């Protein structure tokens, strides 16, 4: 575990990491995260940072535990051991994510996610999908339905603002023409982008994307890259993504964390990862006679 490319592995991780990546503030700090399912250790003592304004990619071979990390961060699983700290850059508040219930992670901490298998509200229109995402704010504006029932001006203004915001996002994902079509009717690539827009409508500080490029053709994949770069540029949001498509990962991410069998095997910029022997070994496998040497190198 004393590998050069894994900067954070102890309680002094923040100092260490800051030295490595030029004084960026972390939004998400994952500290000694372990997740066990019975006898299976899905994640084993994982520590890393996601920095503000960065696109951090979480990669690894199938079954490496990437989605489990996501489920821990977004509250769908409670980690067995470890700490997940989210520092909201906007309010300065700090949240221990492992202590929050599923929906509060989004509502309070501002972590928003998409799913590996798209989970849009298929029977609702694209516009409705984006309005449901703004539920928190609209619910407050409607005085928990009472003001809404009476059509008070406060609620009407909030609803207009919500529609405007939804329209803005539809514009950005180029789906304005299909705003009133059922989400389930949209082509696959559009559904992916709509899901990202829906996640963005919750005003997140950390956007977690679970394989956003899965099943996309090269053109749609390029559109997705453009969208993610655009989001990073214009919105104050940090992105954490799981991806298998190395084209997407290498092109857009600022920082890559590589997992294999629940352990972190590398952590660094795309250039560093590209040349990392442990990563190459994990992805491509190694010759039998090299196994020992590689194992020594990656510390197992």
């Amino acid at each position, binding site marked *: 575990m004393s590998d050069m490319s894994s900067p954070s592995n102890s309680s002094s991780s923040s100092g260490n990491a800051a030295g490595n990546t030029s004084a960026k503030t972390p939004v998400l700090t994952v500290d000694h995260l372990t997740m066990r399912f019975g006898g299976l250790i899905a994640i084993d003592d994982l520590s890393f940072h996601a920095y503000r304004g960065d696109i951090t990619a979480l990669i690894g071979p199938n079954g490496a535990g990437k989605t489990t990390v996501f489920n821990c961060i*977004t*509250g*769908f699983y409670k980690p067995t051991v470890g700490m997940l700290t989210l520092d909201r850059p906007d309010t300065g508040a700090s949240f221990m994510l492992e202590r929050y219930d*599923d*929906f*509060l*992670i*989004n*509502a309070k901490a501002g972590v*928003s*996610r998409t*799913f590996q298998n798209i*989970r*849009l*509200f*298929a*029977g*609702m*229109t694209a*516009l*409705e999908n984006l*309005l*449901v*995402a*703004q*539920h*928190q704010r*609209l*619910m407050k504006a*409607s005085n*928990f*339905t009472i003001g*809404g*029932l009476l059509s008070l001006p406060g609620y009407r203004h909030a609803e207009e603002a919500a*529609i405007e915001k939804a*329209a803005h996002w*539809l514009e950005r994902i180029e789906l*304005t023409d299909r*705003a*009133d*079509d*059922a989400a*389930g*009717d949209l082509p696959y690539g559009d559904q992916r982008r709509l899901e990202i827009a*829906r*996640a963005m409508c*919750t005003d997140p500080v950390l956007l977690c994307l679970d394989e956003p490029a899965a099943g996309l053709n090269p053109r749609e994949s390029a559109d997705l890259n453009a969208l993610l770069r655009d989001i990073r540029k214009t919105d104050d949001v940090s992105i954490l993504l799981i991806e298998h498509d190395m084209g997407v990962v290498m092109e857009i991410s600022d920082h890559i964390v590589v997992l294999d069998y629940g352990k972190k095997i590398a952590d660094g910029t795309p250039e560093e990862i590209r040349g990392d022997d442990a990563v190459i070994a994990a992805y491509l496998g190694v010759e039998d006679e090299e196994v020992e040497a590689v194992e020594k190198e990656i510390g197992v």
Partner: protein
Amino acid sequence: MSELADKTAGAGQGTHGTASGPKIIGALKDAAIAGVIALLLAIPILSFRTIPGDGGLAMYSRWREVAIAVAAVFTGRLLLNLFWWSQSGTPSRTKASALKSLSSLLSSSTRFIAPAVIIFAFLLPFMPFSNRYIMELAVLVLTYVMLGWGLNIVVGLAGLLDLGYVAFYAVGAYSFALLATTFGWSFWICLPLAGILAAMWGVILGFPVLRLRGDYLAIVTLAFGEIVRIVLLNWYTFTGGPDGISSIPRPTFFGLEFKRFGDNTFAQYFGLEYSSLHRIIFLFYIILILALITNFATMKLRRLPIGRAWEALREDEIACKALGINTTTTKLSAFAIGAMFGGFAGSFFATKQGFISPESFVFLESALILAIVVLGGMGSQIGIAIAAVAMIGGIELFRDLAEYRMLIFGLAMVLIMVWKPRGLVGTRTPSIFLKEKKTISADLVQEGHG
């Protein structure tokens, strides 16, 4: 089964390969299978009849009827195969599209139909053909329309399958009856209180079932409905047990009573000749207004964040959580509001009947209300209204046919569900639109998993 049928088909018909042979052979084979099934069903159902004879029951057989039934099924199926269905065995395209256009007409012309129906409903008591029977029937139908609309919030919008809805109807009725008979409060005070109490019971039911989905939710709600009924039946000191509660006060028109004699009666005040019809017409307007309140409240709620959250919950609960929607309060609010309207309907039922007992709140009622919602199309207000009229009106219409009416009725329901598996109006109307309102096909809308 099919091997057996094949043999019968081969032995019985002895078909030869002709020019259009395959089609005829296939049709005969299919008809023979249907005939065998009919035979197997007819033997236990039709073939024997018991009559009280000397010193006990005598049994005589009815093989002629069995033969007629089997022959009818065989020829009917054969004719359907040859002339009605296309070769693939599905209804031909023209018929399917005709049905589709009918349903789209139904859903698209809601805008014109709904106001017309409401105006017609308001004028119904003054129509030349309206009489006591029609008014009583209209009151009954409207009660079920209201119950259907109330259950629609839980089942149709939030996608929570509730088989114990009658419990809230019962809670509303008993709350009303007990409040009115114990404290002597008037209808207009007891009505909202009964609604609030029913809503409270909706939340009480909601808590234990929050984590349950689908079949499990259905079973627990079913049990809840039975628990409420059995408590009402056995808590003799409080509810009167099987004797029920009688002499529940009737509603008054701003303090004017609908009585033949007395100081302050409706007929006397307006200088009308007393007629028992006045009270029924008054009840009709009460339930009409209550039902319309349910409808407009539901339509308004659908367009509010809470309503969209209900529908989102039906579509995908996990995605809701990821978007920061508190699924607990969302589910509980659906149960509470659905139950509240059930409670209103229950109060109305109590004041209309003047007497209630647990017998009125059996599982069959829950099933009937759910059938109305499913038949009408989950989530569709107009569909549910049509289904309620058809079901309750239909049951009354076939009253002369005695025991066969349920048979006809069941058959009609099966046919409708085969034609339109998602109910009469299966399409969904979006709650909001940017440019153009497009209805959403039923295939995309989820049915909810609880």
